[in-house]
C-alpha cells in the first residue's frame, strides 16, 4: 500500500521519508508501556537522515546489511510497514514471522538482507555478497552499515582488508554516534576511523552533517556512482547523534551519561525539529499509514506451534 503523497520537490520527499521513520518510532515509544511490543528496540531517532540519504541513492537490487538499530533502514529501503509493525508485535504476519523482532528485520524483496544483534557481524556478509556480485558479474552495489563500535571488532578489519584486496563493490557506512552502549569512542579507540580505513587503500569520505539528509544523499549518490563505475570499495563515516538511550524508549541524559546541551545543539540543526511547517503538512498522511500498520499488527494472529520448529535447517 503506497500512501506517499505527491511531493513539491525532492527536499520534501526526503523530509517525508525521514519524518515517516521518526513518527513510526515515536509510535513505538507510545506503545511500549502497553507491552504489546515485547522486543528490545534500538531507536534511530536523530539518525534518520543517514538511512534516508543512503537508501535514496540505492536501487532495490542493491543489497544492504545492517545492525540491530535498523528500523530506519528497513523503512527507507522500502520495507513493508505493516509487516514491520507486526514483527515488533511478534505476529506471524511479521516480516520474520514473529521470529525476528526488532533486531533482525529483513526485506530481501527490496534488498535488505538482514540485521544482526552481534556487533560487526554483518560486515563480512556485505563483503561476501560483493564477492558473489563480482564473480557473477552483477551490476549491483552492496552496502554494509555499522556503528563506530563495530570498528573495534577484529572482523571489521578482516572485512575491509578482503574487500580492498579483491576490489569488491561494497560501500562501508560507519554511523558514528560516538557511543557503544555507554562506552565513549574516546575510551575505546586509539585510531581515527577514516584514517584507519584509508590504510587499506580504500577511498574514504567523512560527512559531519548526519542530520542533513540532502547532504548525505548527494554525497552518497556520488559514492554509489563511483562504486558502480569502479567496482571497488568505498568508505563513508557519518557523524550523527542518537537522541534516545542505547536500547529501550528512554533517554540517558538524566543519568549523566550525556549532556542535554549536546542534544539541543544537534536538534537545533535537525530539519525534523526545525521545519514545523513540513511536519504539519505531512504528519496526517504518515500517522494514517502508521495507524493502519498498528491495526494490521493487532488484528494479526500469533505464530502457532506449527511455526516453532519450522525453518530450523
Amino acid at each position, binding site marked *: 500500500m503506497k500512501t506517499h503523497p505527491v511531493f513539491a520537490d525532492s527536499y520534501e520527499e526526503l523530509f517525508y521519508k525521514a519524518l515517516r521513520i521518526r513518527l513510526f518510532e515515536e509510535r513505538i515509544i507510545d506503545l511500549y508501556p502497553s507491552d504489546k511490543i515485547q522486543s528490545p528496540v534500538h531507536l534511530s531517532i536523530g539518525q534518520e537522515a543517514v538511512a534516508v540519504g543512503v537508501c535514496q541513492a540505492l536501487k532495490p537490487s542493491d543489497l544492504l546489511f545492517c545492525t540491530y538499530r535498523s528500523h530506519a533502514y528497513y523503512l527507507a529501503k522500502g520495507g513493508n510497514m505493516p509487516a514491520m509493525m507486526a514483527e515488533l508485535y511478534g505476529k506471524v504476519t511479521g516480516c520474520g514471522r514473529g521470529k525476528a523482532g526488532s533486531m533482525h528485520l529483513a526485506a530481501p524483496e527490496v534488498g535488505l538482507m538482514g540485521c544482526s544483534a552481534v556487533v560487526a557481524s554483518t560486515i563480512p*556478509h556485505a563483503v561476501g555478497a560483493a564477492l558473489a556480485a563480482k564473480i557473477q558479474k552483477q551490476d549491483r552495489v552492496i552496502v554494509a552499515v555499522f556503528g563506530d563500535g563495530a570498528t573495534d571488532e577484529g572482523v571489521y578489519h578482516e572485512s575491509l582488508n578482503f574487500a580492498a584486496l579483491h576490489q569488491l563493490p561494497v560501500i562501508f557506512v560507519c554511523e558514528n554516534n560516538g557511543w557503544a552502549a555507554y562506552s565513549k569512542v574516546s575510551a575505546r579507540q586509539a585510531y581515527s576511523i577514516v584514517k584507519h580505513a584509508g590504510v587499506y587503500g580504500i577511498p574514504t569520505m567523512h560527512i559531519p552533517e548526519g542530520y542533513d539528509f540532502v547532504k548525505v544523499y548527494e554525497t552518497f549518490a556520488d559514492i554509489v556512482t563511483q562504486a558502480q563505475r569502479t567496482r571497488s570499495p568505498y568508505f563513508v563515516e557519518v557523524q550523527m547523534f542518537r537522541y534516545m538511550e542505547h536500547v529501550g524508549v528512554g533517554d540517558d541524559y538524566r543519568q549523566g551519561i550525556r549532556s542535554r546541551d549536546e542534544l539541543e545543539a544537534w536538534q537545533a540543526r535537525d530539519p525534523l525539529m526545525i521545519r514545523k511547517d513540513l511536519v504539519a503538512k505531512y504528519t496526517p498522511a504518515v500517522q494514517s499509514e502508521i495507524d493502519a500498520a498498528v491495526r494490521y499488527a493487532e488484528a494479526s494472529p500469533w505464530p502457532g506451534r506449527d511455526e516453532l520448529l519450522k525453518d530450523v535447517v
Partner: protein
Amino acid sequence: MTSSNTSDVLTYREAVFQTMHAALRDDPRVIIIGQGVDDHKGIFGSTAGLLKEFGPHRVMDTPLAEEGVTGIALGAALNGLYPIQTHIRADFILPAMNQIINLAAKYKYMFGGRFQVPMLIRVVIGRSWGQGAQHSQSLQSLFAHVPGLVVLMMSSAQTILESYPYVIRHHPGPVIAFEHRLMYDLKFHMNELRVDHSPLTSFRIRTGKDVTIVATSIMVMEAVRAAEHLAKYSDIDCEIIDLHCVSHPDTDMILKSVSKTGKLVIADTSWKAYGVCAEICRLVCEKAPNMLKAPVVTLGMQPAPCPTAKSLEDMYYPNLMDLTDAIARLVKNRSNHGIPLPDEKSMADVYKKFKGPF
C-alpha cells in the same frame, strides 16, 4: 580398508578431490575458499590443481581471518554462490564460531525462513605424530549442539562420495563436515553408492545380533576391525552403525538395533562428556531404557587436552585392543572373557601411511 589396488578401491583423499572437482565442474555457484586451497599441497591433495583448472575466482586463498572469511562465505551464499570453506585443522574453525553459531545457524530461522545460506565447511581432524593440543580436536558436538547446523563425519571414501555431492546439490543450509587426517591415505573398498535416500542420516554398515556399536569417523573403521577380529576369534556378532550425521542421526535405526542386541558400545573420536557418547546415551535413556541388558560402554579421548609425546598419545586415544576388549567384556559380561585381543597398542603404528608432520 584394503591394500589392494583394484578399480573398486579409492583413497579418502581421492574421494574428496573427486567431489571437489565435480562440484566446480558441474555447478557454477561453487567456489572453494580457504587458507591454502590453491597452494602446491592443496589441503592434503583434496584441492590440488583445481586453481589451474578453474581459476582464482573459484579457488581462492584467503587471509588468516577465519571469522571474516566465514562471514564472507555466508554473504556470498546469500547472493547466489555455494561456498565450500576449508580448515586444514578443525581447531582453526574456533575463531569462526561467531559467524557459524550466531549467524549461519540462525539465518534461516531468525528471519522467518526468508533466507537460506547453502555452504559447506570442511574441517580436518588431526591425530598422531605429535599433533598436540591444538591440531587434534574433534569438535563435532560443539556444532551438533546448535540447532540450524548439519554436522557430518566422514568415515570412508564411500560416505564422502555419497554426502558431498548431495549436500551441495540438495541441502540449502550450512553443513560442517569433519574429515579425518589419518584416513586421507587409506584405500577404501567402494560399494555401489547409496543414492536412493538422503545421506543426512546414519548408516548400518554391519549386521549382528550380540552388540550394537555406534561409531563416528575413524572409529567406524576401528569398529569394523574389532568386529572382524571378534568374528574370527569368538562367537561375538557385532552390529555397527556409522552415526555419520551427528546432528541428525537415525534414532530409529539405533533404537531398533539396541532393542535387538540389548547392548551398546559408543565409540567417538572426541571427549565423552556432553558429546556424541553422552547424546546417544540420552537417546537410549529417554526412549527405551528397558532395552539395555547391561550398562552402556563408551570410548573416546581421555578428558585432557591432547599431549604430544607418543607415549602419552597412545594412552590418550582408545586403540583397537581397548575397543575389542570393551566389546568382549560387555557381551560376555565378564572381564576374563578369554578371547585373544589384537596385540596392537597404537593406531598410528598400524596406519603407517601418515608420516607427519601435518
